[in-house]
């Protein structure tokens, strides 16, 4: 049975493959193949759409579903109002979309659909994706900042009460910390999602290889690894929520800087 060693490549799950023979679709010379990544974006969009649509019954006394959707909108609204104030309400559509899109992507990517032969793909574990989302958030910050305050927006880089000789140095430091924001935003989500999935895959390879190597290894390595995997799975569900929340929270904090300066 265990003659040939099972091969588990922890990185294989992040491979992007074109689906439905769309590998050569192009727009203006750029490849736009409909990949498994795009497929899961579609699934995320559809599931999210169904979820929110189910909350639109507009009943005075909400049912469970409507209550769930209203909890999420209320959560995002409260977060924006707490961080930005009354002016934060107009960002609810964007931050809600961002938060829910990332949250649903993370959780759908965690579903154990491999059991039925499907291979979930967590597109938030690709920095191309998180990078674009971070860039959109950062663009909003820049656009709102310059739109509302013009060049006065640069005063963001000089905190109140900075001694005059310190201003150039502080300005540089603040500018760098500001410029780093989109990267930290993008990398945090990408790294968190990828690390969790790699860890699960590595542990599962321990279970498979250990069991294949015989009962002793199975008990000594496979079983503890399996128990650990169960714990890590729970942790990953937590991380899926937390990372979506962190992305939305940091976006709202950055928008607060643009909206209210200091």
């Amino acid at each position, binding site marked *: 049975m265990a003659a040939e060693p099972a091969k588990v490549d922890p*990185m294989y799950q992040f491979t992007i493959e074109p689906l439905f023979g769309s590998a050569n679709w192009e727009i203006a010379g750029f490849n*736009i193949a409909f*990949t498994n*990544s795009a497929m899961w974006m*579609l699934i995320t969009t559809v599931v999210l759409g169904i979820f929110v649509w189910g909350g639109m019954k507009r009943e005075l006394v909400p049912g469970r579903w409507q209550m769930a959707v209203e909890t999420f909108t209320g959560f995002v609204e409260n977060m924006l109002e707490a961080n930005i104030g009354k002016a934060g309400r107009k960002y609810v*559509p964007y931050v809600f*979309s961002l938060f829910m899109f990332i949250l649903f992507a993370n959780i759908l990517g965690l579903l154990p659909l491999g059991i039925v032969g499907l291979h979930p793909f967590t597109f938030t574990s690709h920095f*191309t994706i998180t990078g674009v989302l971070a860039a959109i958030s950062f663009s909003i910050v820049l656009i709102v900042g310059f739109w509302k305050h013009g060049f006065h927006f640069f005063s963001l880089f000089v905190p109140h009460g900075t001694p005059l000789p310190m201003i150039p140095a502080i300005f540089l430091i603040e500018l760098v910390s500001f410029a780093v924001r989109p990267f930290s935003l993008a990398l945090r989500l990408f790294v968190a999602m*990828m690390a969790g999935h790699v860890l699960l895959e590595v542990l599962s390879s321990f279970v498979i290889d250990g069991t294949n190597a015989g009962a002793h290894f199975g008990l000594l390595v496979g079983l503890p690894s399996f128990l650990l995997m169960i714990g890590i799975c729970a942790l990953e569900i937590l991380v899926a929520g937390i990372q979506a929340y962190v992305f939305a929270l940091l976006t709202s904090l950055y928008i607060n800087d643009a909206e209210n300066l200091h």
Partner: protein
Amino acid sequence: MPQIAQLAETFSSQIFWLLVFFGIVFFVIGRGMVPKVMGTVAQRDSQIGSDLAAAEAARAQADEEEEAWRKRENENRAAAQALIAKAKAEAAASNEKKLSAAQKRLDKKLADAEAAVAAARTSAMAEIEGVAAEATQDIVQRLAGVSVTAASAKKAVKEAMSNG
């Protein structure tokens, strides 16, 4: 790491489809559905607020009505008390009047009776005198054979009677 290894061949499709689907999420869900959901929440909040205000107003009105009722009740009670007191006083007065009238009647009856008794006595006295005088006349006639006049007999009787 496929994220880096495949970067050159996949970045355009990744960005394209992300913009497509995130755009759908933002414009259809974020801008289309979420405001409606939030509108429902706001509508419910305002409904609850107005219901609470209405309940508060109804309670205040109930308090007011109770206060008015209590006032009216007290007034009625006071009026009833006054009515009872008046009726009592009237009853007492009319009793007194009746009693005094009865007393008067009794007094008069008593006086009449006393007068009648006195009259009867005097007439009886007079009769006794008359009878005594006649008897005296008779006695004197039989004993002494002297006829006395009725007047002197009477006089003698009177003297004897008054002397006792």
